[in-house]
């Protein structure tokens, strides 16, 4: 990963990658010895967080109507929510996958095509950055009016949101490509298709992957937002229902499980991403 250069354009994407790649490189550079100390300190930090959270309930700073303590989550009194949660989770995951595949296909294809044309890139870049940075939730009612109170709305909304991150990453990947490599390909007499297959596509794999990772997280967020706003569908609907019926322990359990799943997914993808980053260099 070129550490400084990519940071102005599409700053979000490139900086997060630099951050993670540097963590891994410093980890390998440092001796194995202090690693244990770091993990121990991390354990202490997590424990402190859980204790502080528990204290808010134990000292009754916040009423149990609004906050569930870790001890209550451990007691398993929320297990009754599991059947409806797994059902909702299944349908939400399906929607997430469908929306994500659609955005990914559109975003990557458009990115490669537009990245090829310098002029198109320069014309469209501000619009894409703009689309990325404005609160798209504000136009959600428009989706609702157009597609109705169902899955179609969720999917349509979740396709638009993450689209910009992917496009931004793929575009800047193609655009920042080493022009000498392309010259080399030309001088080898490659056809455009061959050039793309052998040079451009492999080159943009890490950036694209980074964009896709962020887009996946974004898709999860957009799907949950749409479900929360529609209030009857999937995990978002379940969260909404648990919140307003003050099933606080169940709500916290659902949120905690979702949080753990997403932490696992994101950290795994980040690990792959940093591998890909070093592979290109």
């Amino acid at each position, binding site marked *: 990963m070129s550490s400084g250069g990519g940071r102005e354009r599409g700053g979000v994407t490139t900086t997060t990658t630099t951050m993670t790649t540097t963590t891994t490189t410093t980890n390998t550079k440092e001796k194995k010895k202090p690693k244990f100390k770091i993990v121990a300190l991390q354990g202490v930090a997590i424990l402190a967080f859980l204790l502080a959270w528990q204290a808010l309930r134990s000292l009754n700073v916040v009423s149990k109507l609004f906050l569930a303590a870790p001890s209550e989550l451990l007691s398993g009194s929320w297990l009754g929510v599991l059947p409806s949660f797994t059902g909702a989770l299944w349908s939400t995951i399906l929607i997430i996958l469908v929306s994500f595949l659609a955005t990914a296909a559109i975003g990557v294809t458009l990115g490669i095509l537009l990245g090829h044309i310098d002029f198109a890139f320069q014309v469209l870049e501000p619009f894409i950055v703009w689309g990325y940075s*404005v609160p798209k939730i504000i136009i959600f009612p428009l989706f609702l009016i157009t597609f109705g109170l169902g899955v179609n709305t969720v999917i349509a909304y979740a396709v638009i949101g993450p689209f910009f991150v992917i496009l931004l990453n793929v575009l800047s990947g193609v655009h920042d490509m080493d022009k000498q490599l392309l010259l080399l390909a030309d001088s080898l007499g490659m056809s455009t298709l061959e050039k793309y297959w052998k040079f451009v596509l492999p080159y943009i794999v890490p950036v694209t992957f980074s964009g896709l990772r962020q887009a996946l997280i974004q898709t999860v967020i957009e799907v949950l937002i749409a479900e929360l706003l529609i209030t009857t569908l999937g995990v978002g609907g379940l969260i909404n229902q648990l919140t307003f019926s003050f099933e606080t322990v169940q709500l916290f359990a659902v949120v905690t499980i979702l949080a753990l799943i997403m932490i696992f*997914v994101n950290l795994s993808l980040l690990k792959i991403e940093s591998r890909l980053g070093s592979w290109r260099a």
Partner: protein
Amino acid sequence: LRRVVKIRIVQFLLVAIVFLLWQFLSNEGFLNPIIYSNPAAIASNLVVVFSGKGTVAGFYPNLYATLLALSLGYAIVVVVGVPLGIALGWIRTFGAVMEPLIIAFFSIPSIVLYPIIYLVFGLGVESKILFGALVGFFIVVSNAVAAAKHVKREYILLGDSLGFSRLQTLRKVILPMSAPYVMTGLRFGFSLTFIGVVAGEMIASTSGLGRLVENAVQLLNTTDFFTLIVIVLLIATLGNLLLSYVEKRMSRYKLA
């Protein structure tokens, strides 16, 4: 230079075509004006809304509520996020311990935490402030971390050989060298904080532009709805332009 002009013209034309097409489809009856309104109606309604008249009830108090939540949320992001990021990037052990935890925490899709926030803090402005700050926080921290980490060792060594104290190194080396990159994070942080505030207002809140949008939709007053969208987008765009300008000025201090 000619190329830049050409790019601007094409960009302008693209925007013009979208609005003209929208207006045309609306005039010719292809788009139901009751649902999709049209640019002319929105433009004239914009003037009405800003003059405090029209059918948007309590525009200025709600605009104020949104801007208040935005500025306080963003203030938290700046005041906590930047020092935390610099510290994580600069102090090795602290970074090694806390950075993975912070990355893990912010892997959680922020939206699932919003119900918890408004259960604890209520449907008032506090929840929006906190949620906005939560959404905008990570990008600012991660940019500050990356910035502080990438300060060249040579400059820190130079400071050491000049007998700088830790504080002097921070003030004279780390901060100035990270500033441009931190600023990039702050620009994205602003956008995300605003996204968080508006999302909070749309999902559950008693005031703000997001609330007004929901009200307009429920009354099927789509011209008001689009007018409010334009105002929200204007705030996002103006904030972004202002911060881009600051960022550009600062990037002059970037060293290769």
